[in-house]
């Protein structure tokens, strides 16, 4: 009886290993596409507040069906007025309830000069159809690195963004 115990244990391990990949295969990646525009106020250094640049954000989000509340977001940023610039961001977002999403991440403007910082936002998703939503909500950005930033200045921006999201 004691000799058969290691064999049965090994058999159990093999069965467990065989079972694991089946669970992994069951995972599905869920993709979404987003687009939006934002503007607001900005300040930093010795300056008072002023209107910040209007920014377009085009990107996507990635989830796993097993934990759809955890979302990985990525986007391309384009500042369009009064001056232009291009960059991107990467965020971790989490669904809070059925309609709200909170997110935090890092972002950077790369062209014409670099500007790096962190961002956090809250988004409300208003369903239009089963697979599309209108999104809007506040966002806060803080930039503290980059060649576009004068010495001893931390640039902050408070934005309101509105956009559109589609489940792919």
């Amino acid at each position: 009886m004691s000799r058969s115990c290691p064999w049965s244990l090994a058999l159990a391990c093999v069965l467990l290993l065989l079972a694991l990949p089946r669970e992994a295969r069951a995972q599905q990646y869920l993709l979404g596409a987003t687009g939006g525009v934002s503007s607001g106020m900005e300040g930093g250094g010795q300056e008072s507040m002023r209107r910040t640049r209007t920014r377009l954000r085009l990107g996507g989000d990635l989830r796993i069906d097993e934990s759809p509340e955890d979302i990985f977001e990525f986007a391309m940023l384009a500042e369009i007025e009064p001056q232009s610039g291009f960059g991107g961001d990467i965020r971790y977002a989490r669904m809070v309830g059925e309609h709200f999403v909170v997110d935090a991440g890092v972002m950077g403007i790369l062209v014409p000069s670099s500007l790096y910082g962190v961002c956090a936002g809250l988004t409300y998703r208003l369903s239009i159809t089963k697979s599309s939503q209108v999104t809007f909500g506040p966002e806060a950005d803080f930039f503290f690195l980059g060649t576009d930033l004068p010495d001893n200045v931390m640039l902050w921006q408070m934005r309101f963004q509105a956009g559109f999201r589609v489940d792919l």
Partner: protein
Amino acid sequence: MSTSRRILALLVVGTLAALAAHCSAGGECLRYSDCADGLTCTDGRCVAPAAEAGEEAETDGGDASSADGAPDAGSDSEPTADAATHDGGASTDAAADARDCTDGGCPGDGSASADARTDAGAPADASSD
């Protein structure tokens, strides 16, 4: 939407517009790219890049002119023959001009206005902090 809600919405939009207009003062910068070509952001203002060097040269130039024994470095009659003093004055003139520039740029495109101001004393007054 009721009339009272429309009025409230108009008030909110008007307040936001007024706030945005009030806060977006021209000529200020938070980033180097806020400034027009040829200008740089210093202390929240778009100035000519030579402004800082000009202010340093102003101090140095003033010392140099006195050290050179120039009799009337600050007079309007005849500038000294010291070229360094000329350069410092011209740069400071450019800085004073550039401080008036806004985001839209200067009438002279922010370049050091080559007007024939060679008074070494006036720029020193204009740029002294």
